[in-house]
């Protein structure tokens, strides 16, 4: 397979699991490294300004830190479920605005392909392309493979 570093944004939706499966298939036939990245939305621009008692400052940092750890654990689980031992799968959790973090990481680490789902956990299904996918497509330094949600299970 010609892709050596594949970046897979994960938000734990069915869509991103499907994208991960496709990325694993693409990685298995060569020497690719898969990087699963989850981005925790940075709440401080909102809550920092609100400055409500008990929110903001170290309490916020604690919340974000706990969330990062929990998500890292979830990525670990996802990796063990979906990424075969033959494939080198890295896991990363960051905090920030997902499209920016994803495209910046792709640039900084010279990923040659991003594989992601069209939709994530949030947002409306009737919208044909989620805002994160759209933004990543628009700003990515490398090709972006966008994959649909898994097909509905067959009957009979």
């Amino acid at each position, binding site marked *: *397979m*010609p892709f050596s570093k594949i970046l897979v944004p994960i938000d734990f939706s069915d869509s991103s699991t499907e994208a991960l499966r*496709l990325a694993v*298939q*693409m990685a*298995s*036939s060569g020497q690719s490294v898969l990087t699963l990245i989850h981005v925790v939305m940075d709440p401080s621009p909102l809550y920092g300004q609100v400055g409500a008692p008990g929110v903001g400052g170290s309490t916020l940092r604690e919340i974000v830190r706990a969330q990062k750890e929990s998500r890292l654990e979830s990525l670990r689980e996802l990796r063990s479920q979906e990424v075969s031992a033959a494939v080198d799968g890295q896991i990363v959790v960051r905090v920030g605005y997902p499209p920016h973090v994803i495209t910046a990481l792709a640039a900084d680490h010279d990923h040659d392909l991003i594989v992601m789902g*069209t939709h994530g956990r949030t947002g409306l299904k009737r919208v*044909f*392309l989620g805002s994160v*996918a*759209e933004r990543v*497509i*628009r700003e*990515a*330094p*490398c*090709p*972006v*493979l*966008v*994959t*649909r949600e898994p097909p509905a299970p067959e009957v009979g």
Partner: protein
Amino acid sequence: MAYSRILVGIDGSEASLRAFDFAARLAHDQEAVLDVVSVIDLDQLAFIDFHMFTDSQLDSIQKRARTRVIDDFVSRLPDDMPPPELHILRGPVVKTLVRRVEDTEPDVVVVGRHGKNVVERFVEGSVSRKMAQRCAVPVVVVP
């Protein structure tokens, strides 16, 4: 995983050249059929040129487009690849590409992020975004 059919949509843009190279690499690696599709939207040309095309003009446009695609794109393929399919289609770009995808059921579609036509210079990447929205198969958008 085996891809058996890869569709790449091209126009004259730099991005579609990179899309072509990406699709070619993938097709080569997967030993898949490469379907090279270029769509001519005459309505856009008509808007610029304000005249109707005769049959022989249409024929000539089609031939010139075909030659252009062969010279600028197909020539870049490695020698050990079988010749790709090549289709010069007419109609609205996205609709025509989506129909081609529905008709031929490729495993993946590849397009450049920015196009070359007048409309896209104002609305960035609209063809690629619409392809990502509408295709039932995975779409690769190449910057």
